[in-house]
């Protein structure tokens, strides 16, 4: 019956002589012979009182003794080799899972690509390598690399560098092609030669290269190296590959994120209003506050273009909608104006040309897009004043701050731009004496809703009141003041895009300094006079 037990059985008498030996015990401990003293069998563990576990003939054995009557003693011996190795494997697997969990957590958030690369090598040491080198897929013939080196009792030291793609070790090149190189001996030597393995020599090190999966081609390769005493076995390699998969995903995300951020920044910059160009006799003042402040772009726009005769085209307006879509439309509109002002500088006709150009895109778009705007041409006068001819495209009429302190509403009307084929465009000419200011603004100012007391709008009357008495202010200060009073009115409430453009007649243009900047200044002067 004892033959079927997993445990072997040895029974000794009071003198320690073996009296009975089960077949299992006989197989596990062949040195033990019935009729002889157990302690003399040549197995050191059998001499101890409580030997516990010991290794014997390559097996892990567990031994426990039980006292019987009359001084006899019984020993149970069990082969626990497999359960021990299973437990070891389980512990190792747990360690791997814990490591990968940490890796996933550290690389989980989108990072700057450089920081992601540094994080990858730092995480690889010491769990999978004494030295870890990450080589990114070369861009423009140059490959950037990051390296972490194990430092005792410290965080690994990380450094980085750049190599010409042609100078990369061939094993790295293979890895970048998506293949795990096989020539392992050469690999260590290549890495040593590249100067990547400080403190390790070719004879005493073992290394592996695994590709980091990317979107189409690998995002890079990871070279892991450590002392040859810890060879990379299959389980280690599986861990390195699992690590590389996570690192590849993090890097790919980081690179993608960077590309998108670059594109977004470029586009955003192209959609921001450009400050008006310096023009003789004109002091410009602007304010711009998009509704979605985080985006820094919106549906309001302003700008100016210099004319060859010394004058300038200027404009301020508002497109329907908000945010990115509106900003893109303002971009189209500003591009249109940029081209069209070269063929037509008479404000009313220029605005109609713009209307026709936009009508095609707005109707094709099908969402009722349109713009309202004031577009004018300003020309300096010899007396230091300015003549403004303005066309109205369904926008709020400008204000004029007279030297007397009076604030006038310019009687300018007209139809929105981009809606009907032949819009009625109003036109009006205003003369500014030196020190007088014309003020263009968007409905984000007058339609600002009271953020504290309810939803009453700021309104045109309050605006007129707010700028009354400000006729001596420089244009930039005036624009800033309007933005300020509007924001005070809003409190912390939501608001529409806010834009302000102010033009102030600076006084007589000093000959020489300003006019040098103008192409053909004297000719321009004559042209202006004949036109006036």
């Amino acid at each position, binding site marked *: 019956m004892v033959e079927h037990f997993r445990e072997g059985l040895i029974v000794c008498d009071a003198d320690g002589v073996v009296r009975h030996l089960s077949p299992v015990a006989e197989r596990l401990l062949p040195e033990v012979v019935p009729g002889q003293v157990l302690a003399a069998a040549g197995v050191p563990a059998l001499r101890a009182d409580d030997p516990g576990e010991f290794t014997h003939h390559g097996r892990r054995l567990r031994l426990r003794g039980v006292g019987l009557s009359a001084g006899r003693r019984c020993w149970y011996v069990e082969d626990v080799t497999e359960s021990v190795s299973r437990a070891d494997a389980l512990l190792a697997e747990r360690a791997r899972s814990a490591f990968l969990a940490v890796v996933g957590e550290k690389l989980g958030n989108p990072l700057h690509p450089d920081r992601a690369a540094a994080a990858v090598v730092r995480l690889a040491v010491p769990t999978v390598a004494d030295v870890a080198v990450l080589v990114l897929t070369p861009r423009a013939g140059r490959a950037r690399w990051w390296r972490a080196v194990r430092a005792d009792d410290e965080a690994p030291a990380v450094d980085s560098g750049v190599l010409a793609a042609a100078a990369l070790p061939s094993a790295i090149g293979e890895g970048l092609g998506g293949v795990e190189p096989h020539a392992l001996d050469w690999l260590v030597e290549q890495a040593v030669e590249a100067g990547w393995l400080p403190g390790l020599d070719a004879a005493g090190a073992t290394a592996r290269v695994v590709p980091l999966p990317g979107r189409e081609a690998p995002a890079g390769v990871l070279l892991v190296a450590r002392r040859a005493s810890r060879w990379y076995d299959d389980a280690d390699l599986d861990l390195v590959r699992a690590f590389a998969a996570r690192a590849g995903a993090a890097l790919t995300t980081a690179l993608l994120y960077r590309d998108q951020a670059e594109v977004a920044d470029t586009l955003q910059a192209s959609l921001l209003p450009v400050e008006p160009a310096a023009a003789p006799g004109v002091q410009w003042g602007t304010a711009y506050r998009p509704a979605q402040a985080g985006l820094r772009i919106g549906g309001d726009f302003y700008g100016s273009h210099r004319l060859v005769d010394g004058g300038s085209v200027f404009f301020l307006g508002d497109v329907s909608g908000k945010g990115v879509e509106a900003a893109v439309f303002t971009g189209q509109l500003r591009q249109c104006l940029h081209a069209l002002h070269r063929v037509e500088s008479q404000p009313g006709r220029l605005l109609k040309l713009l209307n026709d150009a936009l009508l095609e895109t707005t109707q094709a778009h099908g969402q*009722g897009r*349109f713009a309202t705007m004031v577009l004018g041409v300003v020309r300096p006068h010899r007396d230091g004043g300015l003549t403004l001819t303005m066309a109205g495209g369904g926008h709020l009429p400008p204000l004029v701050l007279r030297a007397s302190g009076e604030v006038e509403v310019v009687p300018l009307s007209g139809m929105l731009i981009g809606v009907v084929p032949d819009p*009625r465009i109003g036109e009006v000419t205003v003369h500014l004496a030196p020190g007088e200011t014309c003020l263009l603004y968007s*409905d984000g100012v007058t339609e600002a809703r009271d953020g504290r007391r309810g939803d009453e709008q700021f309104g045109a009357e309050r605006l007129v009141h707010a700028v009354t008495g400000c006729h001596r202010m420089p244009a930039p200060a005036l624009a800033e003041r309007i933005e300020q009073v509007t924001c005070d009115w809003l409190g912390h409430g939501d608001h529409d895009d806010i834009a302000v453009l102010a033009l102030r007649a600076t006084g007589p243009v000093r000959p020489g300094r300003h006019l040098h900047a103008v192409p053909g200044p004297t000719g321009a002067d004559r042209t202006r006079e004949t036109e006036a």
Partner: protein
Amino acid sequence: MTFTVTYGRRDGGPACLRLAGELDLATAPELNAAIDRLAAEGHRELLLDLAELTFCDSTGIAAFVRGDNLVTAAGGWLRITGATGRVARVLQVTGLAEVLSHEAGVADPATPAAS
């Protein structure tokens, strides 16, 4: 304050939508949907009664323009009527009153505006 669109069909006349409340970014989709529904049902002539509309921003204006484009493409028209106060001022400033006003339009039918 909320926004409502009510549909009132009058025999022989255009389809009439009464707008009440505030028409802005948040509520314009409702108007767009109502206009789309009428157009899909085959209505080509739409009259928007703005008598009870208290606020209209550029998004609202865009909804009028969009609706007009929609039915004009099918040979019809969209007109607005009854605007007062703030809304009337917006329509005046943008010049839209001239383009879409029921009273001023020449292509409008003889039926008087709803109020």
